[in-house]
């Protein structure tokens, strides 16, 4: 007689479409996924332990290396947490420049997501298109701070340095150009039959499940909840900016694609407004010591990163070093929901689901 047997398969940790060193233990019934158990930690560097042994201003370079695709957001969140802890006011100009840089970082991060996600599913062209525009942003970062990926461009109390001459012109050139480039991506994908087949209905997650799993960012918004920290608890200069929070009701991979594409447009809008309203003045709070001390206390600060909520929990015992430093990373929390998203799907969908969660393993493993 016939009988079926479950098959156990390891996917990764060196699989090209797991976006880093992620291992998935799959239980398969033929091609159908019965269970997925992610195995993480291959990139664990003990950043939280290291942070407890460094003074406050030495930690941002470590934060950069958590989520290296969106190092600006990581940096900004940590710096703002320190400022809350020590009660430091940031000059207005620095707030605006922070907003511009954080949004450019969001665009570059979403471009990496779109390029690699499409590449995984088999659309190679998009990858080159996305990296063409990402290159422009990285060049802007390079001319601002000298680094392209691990930028370390924010400082406690302000920013690294004022914008170099000609920077705003380059930035304006980019945001004038970029909306037409988004149309190009859309032309390649939005009505592409293969893309629709591979993404529609794949990796569905409901709003209730998202919230219970703590899933945030574009994934939550694609399930219909308009939760965006830039709106609910504005930081930097976001309270002066006008922008929409895109949502979608479908909760599948295609919905998340549409939401992220719309976020690219909104980010462009924010950068344009910030450039228009950029005030003159100081870029750093005065009278700050390098070996600063924070009063006894604790803060938990969250910002809206490209992947979701990035949380920073700092405990101070009054010394020069944080007593405890915890990073709540969106990749870690969002990846936990992969089991619920992929059960019952086909094994080929796993690749699309990893792409749509948009994980960075450096952020996940810390």
């Amino acid at each position, binding site marked *: 007689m016939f009988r079926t047997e479950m098959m156990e398969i390891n996917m990764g940790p060196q699989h090209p479409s797991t976006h880093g060193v992620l291992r998935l233990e799959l239980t398969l019934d033929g091609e159908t996924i019965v269970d997925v158990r992610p195995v*993480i*930690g291959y990139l*664990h560097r*003990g950043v*939280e*332990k*290291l942070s407890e*042994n460094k003074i406050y201003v030495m930690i941002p370079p470590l934060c950069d290396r958590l989520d290296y695709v969106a190092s600006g957001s990581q940096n900004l969140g940590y710096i703002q947490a320190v400022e*809350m*802890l020590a*009660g430091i006011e940031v000059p207005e100009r620095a707030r605006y420049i922070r907003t511009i840089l954080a949004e450019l970082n969001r665009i570059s991060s979403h471009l990496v997501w779109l390029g690699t996600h499409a590449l995984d599913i088999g659309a190679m062209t998009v990858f080159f298109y996305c990296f063409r525009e990402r290159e422009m942003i990285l060049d802007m970062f390079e001319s601002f701070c000298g680094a392209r990926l691990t930028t370390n461009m924010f400082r406690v109390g302000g920013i690294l340095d004022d914008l170099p001459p000609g920077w705003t012109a380059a930035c304006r050139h980019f945001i004038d150009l970029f909306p037409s480039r988004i149309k190009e991506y859309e032309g390649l994908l939005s009505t592409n039959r293969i893309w629709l087949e591979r993404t529609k209905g794949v990796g569905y997650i409901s709003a209730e*499940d998202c*919230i*219970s*799993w*703590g899933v*945030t960012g574009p994934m939550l918004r694609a399930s219909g*909840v308009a*939760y965006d920290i830039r709106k*609910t*608890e504005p930081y930097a200069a976001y309270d002066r900016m006008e922008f929409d929070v895109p949502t979608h009701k479908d909760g599948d991979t295609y919905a998340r694609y549409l939401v992220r594409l719309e976020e690219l447009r909104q980010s462009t809008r924010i950068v344009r407004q910030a450039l228009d309203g950029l005030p003159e003045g100081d870029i750093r709070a005065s009278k700050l010591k390098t070996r600063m001390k924070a*009063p006894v*206390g*604790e*803060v*938990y600060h*969250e910002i809206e990163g490209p992947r979701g*909520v990035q*949380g920073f*929990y700092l*405990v101070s015992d009054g010394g020069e070093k944080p*007593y*405890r430093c*915890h990073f*709540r990373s969106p990749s*870690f*929390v969002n990846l*936990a*929901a992969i089991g619920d998203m992929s059960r019952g799907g086909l094994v080929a969908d796993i690749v699309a689901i990893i792409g749509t969660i948009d994980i960075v393993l450096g952020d996940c*493993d*810390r």
Partner: protein
Amino acid sequence: MTESTPPPDEKQTDQAAAPAAPRMSPEEQKLRREVLSVALDRLRERFPDCVLEVAYYADQVTVLVPREMVAEILVFLRDDDVTAFDLLADQTAADWPERGKRFDVIYHLYSIPKNHRLRVKAHVGEGEPVPSAVPIYKAANWHEREIFDLFGIPFDGHPDLRRILLPDEWRGYPLRKEFPLEGFPEQHMRLR
């Protein structure tokens, strides 16, 4: 300014008589001011004996609750209409080895409909189990595995309590304060 300044000797006596005033700058005082928290009031109303301590810092509220009551309190905070903490934003721990109960287990709660936050904290002694929050928030699953992995705090009722970031055979709990920064000698990377 000058006419209101008291003579130097009088000032001297004043200072000696007054109790040591807290030396806080205005910024620090601002950071420490009490924050209006509906959620905290509601929690006090429902569990009057469980609010052991309340701390305010930088507009954030921390409430200390007994370890045994954590699960019940979280269920209440999630399901109550006023508090409505539907999102477990973060869960972590901290180690204070000098203290009797050395660990803090910390829950950062956020409410999407109400847009407010609360930090719930419990003191946990070495080896004492904490009621798992997995039945309440699925997000707690990996957070608790991480705390177990890095601090060695066990969670009661967790469906799958294994190490998550470190290898299964790893010795020690790295985020405890006594763990050496570079690990135990057998954990050092060697060039072969």
